């Protein structure tokens, strides 16, 4: 790692101020950022730790019945505290990385980083969640803008994510055997007014909604409804763990299995 200063603000306001420093970068759980720093792939001069900000931690229900999760909430907490209100989301959180990673990694960090193979973005997108920052609220559909790219401005912090709770939902993950990140994972959420399907791990453009499947499932919520559908393998990631065509195939299989699990 290159050396850097660490600031530890205790409020969102102070964190935003600290992030105004030259070459400052937020540090949330650090489970991706610290390995990145070790590889000297980033060179911040200041890391602003968000861990000490109490107002960014915790889970609650808002008046609209949305599950609201503070950006600094670790996966282990989500796995426990959301289990009743949104079991599919809790199940996703309970299977990110490994137990030690889940004790440090946060939803805000995951969403802000938008790793193309991260778990959370699929839930955020499929749930039609709202990403809350220190400055504004951003709809999930506008938030994710391609691999490692989001609508966040420089120095903007994800303070909360508000999840509308679907009638039912399921996350189906197929792991890459080395990293244990999803090779392909699909989050299917059935709402009263339609079905949303979000796919992670697969695409060169990061997490995406599979609209064709959504249309088919909104008309007929059954595994058969998606069995004839496919995504284009040429726009999928192709690497030593699987070709684009294989990932495209898995998108279909994971979607079908997620739906079957809800039948």
């Amino acid at each position, binding site marked *: 790692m290159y050396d850097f200063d660490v600031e530890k603000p205790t409020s969102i306001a102070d964190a935003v101020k600290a992030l105004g420093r030259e070459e400052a970068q937020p540090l949330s759980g650090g489970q991706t950022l610290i390995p990145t720093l070790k590889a000297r792939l980033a060179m911040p001069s200041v890391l602003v730790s968000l861990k000490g900000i109490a107002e960014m931690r915790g889970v609650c229900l808002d008046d609209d019945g949305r599950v609201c999760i503070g950006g600094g909430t670790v996966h282990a907490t989500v796995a426990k505290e959301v289990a009743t209100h949104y079991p599919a989301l809790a199940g996703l959180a309970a299977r990110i990385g*490994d137990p030690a990673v889940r004790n440090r990694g946060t939803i805000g960090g995951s969403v802000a980083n938008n790793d193309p193979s991260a778990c959370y973005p699929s839930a955020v997108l499929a749930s039609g969640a709202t990403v809350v920052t220190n400055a504004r609220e951003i709809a999930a559909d506008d938030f994710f803008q391609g691999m490692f790219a989001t609508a966040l401005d420089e120095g903007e912090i994800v303070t909360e994510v508000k999840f509308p709770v679907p009638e039912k939902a399921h996350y189906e993950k197929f792991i890459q055997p080395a990293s244990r990140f999803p090779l392909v994972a699909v989050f299917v959420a059935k709402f009263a007014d339609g079905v949303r399907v979000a796919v992670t791990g697969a695409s060169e453009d990061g997490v995406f909604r599979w609209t064709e499947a959504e249309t088919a499932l909104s008309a007929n919520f059954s595994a058969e409804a998606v069995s004839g559908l496919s995504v284009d393998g040429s726009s999928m990631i192709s690497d030593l763990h699987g070709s684009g065509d294989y990932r495209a195939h898995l998108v279909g299989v994971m979607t079908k299995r997620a739906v079957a699990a809800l039948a």
Partner: protein
Amino acid sequence: MTQVKMTVNGKSASGDVEGRTLLASFLRDNLKLTGTHIGCDTSQCGACVVHVNGEAVKSCTMLAVEADGAEVMTIESVANADGSLNVIQQAFQDHHGLQCGFCTPGMVMSASALLKENPKPTEAEVRHYLDGNICRCTGYHNIVKAILAASGQDVSALAAE
């Protein structure tokens, strides 16, 4: 350099660290607690697992300054007060759950976090809980068996020697 202060294995500890100093390095280099090992740099192998405020974390993926003020427990704190092996350590010895010993501190710390959360885990639960702990020697058989035994479950049916 920043000064950090924390409680490590029940004793107060402090030292000057750079921003980039990892908790694992602080434990090993400043405090000479070399039982915590570093086996990778991508946060996967788990040889560095310690408990921070009662929870298992990878000490190589946490900055020392982030542990300022925390309660840290390492492998050096696990044995009984009289120095004898605790129930998990004893099960690892009884069931040959270690060979070269390098991953062992992390395995024991993870196992102890598991049993605190889930006192009677199933075999599958044990195996999945160890997703972040890599062992190259044992093939995991005797580690899983030791953890099941440490939880008080009967492992006599699980092949033996």
